[in-house]
């Protein structure tokens, strides 16, 4: 019976070791790699090379903008879908399933799917032609029209990853006892007021999780962009990939990784601080 006390530690030990080796340690290693020169000494050379690179500014700009545009869109849309689901009288299970289908779709696949729409002889141009807006196929995804690529990426990302936010929010909604909203109704709150004053505040923990998760994932956006625009719309993760693969320079790639990590941690801290539960809610 005395061994009892050590059992939980024995049970978590393998996963702890694993995470130390494949999470904590590479985190450190990324930092080290980015500040080590070829000779082994400490240096900021990698960061300087990164900053001096033609693509760096654009990559930073587009990555941040993408997160800034995509994440709020997804949250608002998912929130709307979650509320809509509550208002449906029939077929909830079916809608629930269909709306969450994109959850299983990879970013690369999503990029390719939307490539079929935005490509020169794709469905978008076909539609525009059918509406009489254009005569000949338009080239949307070229280096001359980065904003169009940006739009296509936003479309693909919103299509693919709203489902995650939706599922987190619905799960969160299920945990809120109906009585709160009903009590508010008894006291005369309109549906709109109930949403803003009861549901949304109670949903805050789920919103926080969804925001953090989506922001982190948005900051490492990669395959969607590559599928739709190649390097015509540079992003940070993409640059890290090119520096590692094409230029065989792990140091600069690690510098990019450190930048992504830094922004991610910063974003998480900001969310945690902004959405801190108030004292009276902590109960």
């Amino acid at each position, binding site marked *: 019976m005395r061994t009892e006390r050590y059992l939980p530690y024995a049970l978590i030990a393998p996963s702890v070791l694993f*995470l130390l080796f494949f999470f904590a340690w590479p985190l450190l290693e990324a930092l080290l*790699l980015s500040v080590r020169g070829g000779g082994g000494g400490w240096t900021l050379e990698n960061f300087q090379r990164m900053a001096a690179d033609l693509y760096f500014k654009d990559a930073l700009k587009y990555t941040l903008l993408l997160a800034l545009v995509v994440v709020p869109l997804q949250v608002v849309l998912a929130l709307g879908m979650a509320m809509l689901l509550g208002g*449906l009288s029939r077929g909830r299970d079916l809608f629930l399933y269909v709306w969450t289908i994109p959850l299983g*779709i990879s970013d690369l696949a999503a990029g390719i*799917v939307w490539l079929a729409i935005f490509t020169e*002889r794709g469905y978008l141009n076909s539609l525009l032609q059918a509406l009489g807006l254009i005569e000949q196929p338009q080239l949307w995804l070229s280096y001359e029209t980065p904003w169009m690529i940006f739009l296509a990426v936003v479309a693909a990302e919103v299509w693919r990853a709203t489902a995650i936010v939706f599922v987190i929010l619905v799960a969160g909604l299920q945990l809120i006892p109906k009585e709160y909203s009903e009590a508010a109704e008894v006291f005369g709150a309109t549906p709109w007021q109930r949403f803003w004053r009861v549901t949304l505040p109670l949903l805050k923990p789920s919103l926080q999780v969804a925001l953090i998760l989506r922001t982190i994932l948005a900051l490492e956006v990669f395959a969607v962009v590559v599928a739709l625009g190649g390097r015509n719309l540079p992003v940070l993760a993409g640059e890290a990939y090119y520096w590692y693969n094409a230029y065989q320079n792990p140091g600069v790639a690690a510098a990019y990784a450190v930048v992504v990590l830094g922004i991610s941690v910063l974003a*998480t801290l900001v969310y945690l601080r902004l959405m801190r539960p108030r004292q009276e809610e902590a109960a």
Partner: protein
Amino acid sequence: MNLRRLYMVLAVLLVVWVLLPIFLIATLAFSDRPSVFAWPKGLLPQQFSLETISFFFGVEGVWRAIRNSLAVAAMTLVFSVLLGAPAGYALARYRFAGADAYRLLILMTRAFPLAILAIPLAVRFIQLGIYDTLLGVALVHTALALPFAVLVTSSLFLSIPKELEEAAWTLGCNRLQAFLRVVLPLALPGLAATAIFAFVISWNEVFAATLLTLRERTLPAFLLTSLNDSPLPFRFAGGFFLIVPALVFIFVIRRYLFTLWGIASR
């Protein structure tokens, strides 16, 4: 009543929004070459054909990439369940010093883009001799799936009353027997959902898979690296094929989706 109808219309529109792109890529994947390049395109396929899809499977390296993807996903599945479920069980059943610290470690992994960590790992993997191996990719994918497995299995075990296990003890089981005979059968569907989730995470992951391999490409890695010099039909068929298993898996675990995420977001 009009409001109800409006809701229904909106809901159906969302369904169209989700399904139409999938329908379109499926259409392309099952058309012949001329229809893929046709302009302007109609919504419906002009001609059903296996030309595109068989062209895709005919490309050198595709079958191998599929095999690799399956192997990596299977390894990820096994690793994350084997490592995650015991930890989930410990979190669910014991109060021990360090449990909170462990939870924090698991939640911390969320604040970092894990796939990016493939960069330092690639360097280390070369030294360890597991660069460009399926095992190496599976290990990184396990790091992605493990936090999930821990949280989900912990809630799973929490939902199985402790009294059932205690009843088994009083009836003559030791800990292991009670787990195998009582807890495991009850946890099995949830464990299967967890496993499938890990499988899908691995099947879909592209960044780390691309960085960590040269010849032993997984399917996403293979597709990504050949995007630039491959014709559209190849890409469309590949994109479609990537989606199919995921669709099936999500369908299978749909009942668990919400418990999965509901708890994972606690």
